[in-house]
């Protein structure tokens, strides 16, 4: 994973609550054996009609979403399946961050392991972001501050270990393997 320190970009807004990972990437695209190339199928059933034409009024198909790499989504984003293909698809499409009031557990942790940043904000900030699509936002992982127009910097939280890994591009498997002796000892003790 590459190190991630600070992301400054415009937002695209998907205001619906409970957007599940089947919407982010439908199961029929999970037959792949690699991580790459899933962005073309991101939100595919919302982006495209059955005949392959674009759904004109879907936000990601509108010109103002071009270059927006921060997604502002309704509450409980990423619920449902554990498929890591969901953050892979978001990253491959170009998104770097999702901001919501609540993000589902498995998706949240899968995201952090891939350098896709889940940011939880309170209802008031969330409402403001939903009402102001396309604003420029800065997500600073070093200072854990979210900067949005017309507001003082807003603190947000990322688990300290996950933050360390993001800032330093640390591979968590390497960290686990450093504890090989402890794992050996555990197995000896419990067998």
């Amino acid at each position: 994973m590459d190190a991630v320190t600070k992301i400054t970009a415009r937002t695209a807004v998907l205001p619906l609550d409970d957007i599940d990972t089947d919407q982010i990437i439908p199961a029929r695209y999970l037959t792949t054996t690699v991580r790459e190339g899933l962005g073309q199928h991101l939100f595919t059933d919302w982006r495209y009609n059955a005949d392959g034409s674009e759904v004109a009024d879907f936000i990601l198909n509108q010109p103002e979403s071009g270059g927006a790499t921060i997604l502002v989504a309704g509450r409980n984003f990423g619920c449902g399946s554990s498929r890591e293909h969901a953050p892979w698809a978001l990253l491959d499409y170009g998104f770097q961050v999702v901001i919501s009031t609540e993000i589902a557990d498995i998706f949240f942790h899968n995201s952090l392991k891939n350098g896709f940043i889940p940011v939880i904000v309170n209802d008031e900030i969330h409402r403001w972001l939903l009402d102001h699509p396309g604003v420029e936002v800065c997500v600073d992982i070093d200072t854990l501050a979210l900067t949005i127009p017309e507001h003082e910097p807003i603190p947000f939280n990322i688990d300290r270990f996950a933050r360390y890994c993001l800032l330093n591009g640390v591979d968590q498997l390497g960290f686990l393997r450093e504890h090989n002796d402890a794992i050996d000892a555990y197995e000896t003790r419990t067998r």
Partner: protein
Amino acid sequence: MRSLFEKVWDQHVVVAETDETPAILYIDLHLVHEVTSPQAFNLLREVGLPVRRPEQTLATMDHSTPTTPVSSLADLAVVSDTPATRQLVQMEKNCNDFGIKLRGFSSPERGIVHIIGPELGATQPGRTIVCGDSHTSTHGAFGALAFGIGTTEVGHVLATQCMLQRRPKTFAVNLEGSLSAGVTAKDIVLSVIGKTGVDGGTAHAIEYRGSAVGALSMEQRMTICNMAIEGGARAGMFAPDDTTYEYLAGRQYAPSGADWDRALAEWRQLPSDPDARFDKQVTLDVTTMTPMVTFGTNPGMVISIDDPIPSPAGNDKAFAKALNYMQLESGKPLSGTPVDVVFLGSCTNSRLSDLQDAAGLLDGRRIAANVRMLVVPGSQQIKVDAEARGLDEIFKAAGAEWREPGCSMCLAMNGDSVPTGKLAVSTSNRNFEGRQGPGARTVLASPLTAAASALTGTVSDPRQFLD
């Protein structure tokens, strides 16, 4: 004084959690299937690592597999060269290369991963169990701590038999009373999700407890734990009891002889202490529960079959979008809505008792002419058991299709799908938009409600068919 969850967690901590780092948690059993593992095996190859404990890794193929008869993967590879087939071929190669026993096409032990773990006796009280699949929560029915993980974590567990975890909070779901006729475990869990919401369990591990749980069979407990994730909780658990031990005794991977006695003594220590504390609680009376059906596009959008479809609270865009997708209207009953497809299957409801429930209603009757009904047993073993009892003949005589085991129409990865715009009553776990095929409309229900709906051709209350 500790809860069941805390006891299992504490026993598996290799390195304790600090402010700086999560706990390193030891995993007793790793379940692996073809969809969420290929990239993890790729990683092992890249870094040159073996699988640390192949004997603690249970592998099968279930998501991408056809439910029409296929005797071997070689046959399938000849007849089709789809991405799904290539994924299955890759799974076989990965298991061969890394020394993992695969329950493949020719194995009598093949089936949905969450069905075969318990069936083989690999799912045991007090164990930590993970899988790259959110419905891993199923195994909590045995008093195991079981939860779904992502593919990166699948790689971690393959390589180290451990994963990095922060301890979740605990959530007691108290189930009181006893079930009425025609009401099932599926109706309990749908009622719980209706009450707590699809995010009520986020960041929590659930323990289902209370006066109702002792009477529940292992199969019923598995159905309830299976859908813990639909309420946002990664794990759901029941304390082990005599029902658990009777289920396990004599199974392939269950301990035997003196080992069994030792295990039993340990398992009996697992239930939550009387004064165990939970971070949150909710209580539901199961006595008053009725058959439940979903009307929207997540499992929390659920009503009693007796009730009309509710109205959105305020300007709820997701609610309005869901009703529009489902082609349903607030204030109208869901009962009586025409049904095109009935799916009896999935890791939620494809066990022998589920098939028996449905067959009991279908015996001597014919499903409606306009309905296609697909019956997909959860495993090869369930298929054999059902056929020995003549259930396949009942289903076929009623006009249903009797298939090979797999995940099938639950997520429509294998070609079994609901056509666009058609309405399916499904015993699976997710009614998300497009889950059963692009544009498919899903009503989640119990096997009894599914069978009743197949008979009438409309969403129907099964209690009308009970004596």
